[in-house]
């Protein structure tokens, strides 16, 4: 059992849970994720390890409540526990050895960018982060990223930082030159837009993919993605890939596989049939 030590609302539908997982806290590396299994009957959910405190033995999970399973998770309060957390899974981020890095985070993806920026900073790589959200209350992890380097905040409505998309700010920064690597994590359209910017400039770009996953250990193949024409499994070959070769259309499409089920589960939940685990 993994006890919830702290809980914090980061934006209207994004919650941070700091959860006991001492071994994972000790050895996790940037880019890695865990599979969270709340209770018997619950889904197995892949979540990036946004941060870790090895001394306290906790990892930070940042959860966007979009469906029944994620809502069940964010309904947990400190003192309650998650039945199973397996990890750390996935390949660690390929951190550059020298040069300057640009981290682009959109929405909840900003939490995934955070450990990458941490890893870069630890190597002495200067990091510029561009993060964004719909409006001010949707911007997350700004203070944490400011500790690691320069940060540009963008909001769609201009209620905070620059008005516009993260790609607008990224375009300007890239035009100025001197960026050796881009790490981009966020909604699929955002990641696609970023790689479309960096491709003509020849700036290598790593993206973190979030396909549907079940076991997370290479057994089911549900998380298969096409990269450079090859079928790869996000759980063992990723979740980070060379963005210039990712088939984003395919990813986007497969992410829609269970949309109808998600709606049914949410409706059942709203009708008061919500519960945690199978009874």
């Amino acid at each position, binding site marked *: 059992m993994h006890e919830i030590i702290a809980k914090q609302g980061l934006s209207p539908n994004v919650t941070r849970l700091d959860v006991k997982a*001492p*071994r*994972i806290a000790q*050895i996790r590396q940037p880019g890695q994720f865990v*599979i969270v*299994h709340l209770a018997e*009957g*619950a*889904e*197995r959910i892949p979540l990036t390890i946004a941060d870790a405190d090895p001394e306290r033995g906790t990892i930070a999970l940042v959860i966007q409540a979009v469906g*029944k*399973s994620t809502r*069940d998770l964010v309904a947990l309060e400190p003192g309650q526990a998650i*039945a*199973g*957390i*397996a*990890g*750390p*899974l996935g390949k660690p981020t390929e951190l550059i050895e020298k040069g300057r890095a640009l981290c682009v985070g959109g929405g909840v993806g900003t939490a995934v960018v955070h450990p990458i920026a941490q890893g870069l900073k630890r190597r002495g790589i200067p990091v510029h982060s561009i993060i964004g959200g719909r409006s001010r209350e949707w911007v997350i992890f700004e203070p944490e990223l400011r500790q690691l380097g320069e940060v540009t905040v963008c909001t769609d409505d201009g209620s905070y930082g620059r008005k516009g998309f993260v790609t607008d700010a990224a375009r300007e920064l890239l035009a100025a030159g001197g960026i050796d690597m881009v790490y981009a994590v966020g909604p699929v359209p955002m990641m696609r837009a970023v790689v479309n910017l960096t491709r003509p400039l020849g700036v290598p770009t790593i993206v973190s993919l979030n396909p549907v996953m*079940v*076991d997370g*250990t*290479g*057994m*089911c*193949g*549900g998380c*298969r993605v*096409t990269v450079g024409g090859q*079928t790869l*499994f996000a759980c*063992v070959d990723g979740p980070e890939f060379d963005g210039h070769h990712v088939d984003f259309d*395919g990813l986007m*499409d*497969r992410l*829609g*596989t*269970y949309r109808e*089920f*998600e709606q*049914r*589960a949410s409706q*059942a939940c709203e009708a008061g*049939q919500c519960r945690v685990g*199978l009874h």
Partner: protein
Amino acid sequence: MSEKYTTRERLKIDRQKMSEQDPQVRNANFAEVNLGLQEKVALLEAERCLQCRDPKCVSGCPVMVNIPRFLDLLSEGNLAGAAQSLLSDNALPSVTGRVCPQETQCEIECIRGHKGLPVAVGYLERYVGDWAQGHRDQVPMQVAPATGRRVAVVGAGPGGLTAAGELARRGHEVTVFEALHKPGGVLVYGIPEFRLPKKIVEDEVSRLEQAGVKIVCNTVIGRTYTIQELRAEFDAIFIANGAGLPVFMNVPGENFKGVYSANEYLTRVNLMSAYQFPRADTPVLLGRRVATVGGGNVAMDSARTAKRIGAEASMIVYRRTRKEMPARAEEIHHAEQEGIEFEFLVAPVEVVGNEKRWVTGLKCVRMKLGEPDASGRARPEIIPGSEFVIPCDVVVVAIGTRANPLLTATCPELKLNKWGNIVVDEQGMTSLPGVFAGGDIVRGAATVILAMGDGKRAAAAMDEYLKTAPRLSRSAAVAV
């Protein structure tokens, strides 16, 4: 052999039948298909055994169960004796009684099969195994005095659980690491409830726990801990982490929505209980017409599962004929009874989809059998111009698995073959001293009983190894 019958009379007893759920009822539920034997029927069937002096059935069994001995005790009505005898040879009889291909192992060797039908060894193994579960106090596990040795087992599937039981019995302290949230491996994520109820697996696991085996779930060796970290903590290790990455067909359209690997399809339904959605949270696409590609047990399990979750048509697409199918005879027979349709001598060339990339069909070609290939089976050849489309909305690919690289990639000292499987010597030991391996990670995709045989043999070899191996000064890095 009880003295109720003469050999002549014994020869007149017909093979007893096991009752089954009606095919048209069971193809809509997940309850077990085979209903088991009554005690008097089991005892009568046991009388059919002629107690051969040189019992060929035993050498047909991958774990060498002393079949005549337990049948003899059973025929005398000594159930505790029969159970004790069986369990001393086979750690999971309730499982193997249900899932072993007896017809190609013990029963094919049975002398009674030469003239009539062989003794129903599988049914009786199941009967005695189940009896032992219900009467655990009468068949206590006999555990040797503690040796002070700690052993790690990687993977709580059939190979790992068998090794764990054998090692615990010999007095070693055993910890089993399981990557998923539940022990059982393929017995819980792969083999469906209607063939092997999860309760049976839970009971077998709890018997091991009672004997002192510790099972740690949600721990992925190769990620959470490496083999080298375990080596610092345990005197010996048995790796049985199973098969891994599913093989796809590598045809166009394979990433359309509605194409599953059998591993994913079965894991969703079995391990994650997707058939109970929305009572369980994990969904599975409910195909109206489901085409399963492959001819093994996993293909049969998938096709029969599809029928049970509501498919109007569930089809097996296999490139050879019924005769070459690697599935257990009983599974093919049960699938036919349940209304599974078979397309033999057919090979998929493309998954067809609509503009929204949902599966609408499986484009196939017809095959004919040519010369035998390396495996000795006739090589299927394409008949030119024979393309046709099987309309379907879900495709399940059940054509095998490749070695999982998670563990081996983080332990480069382990010698692998060219397919990524771990290489072991006759004792089951890998290139790392004290590290043994067995089951699918060594063999490639094989069967439950072969994995169990590996677990049993490796446990004996590990026990020998531990008699002389140096004792460790432990770092206590692995907190379990």
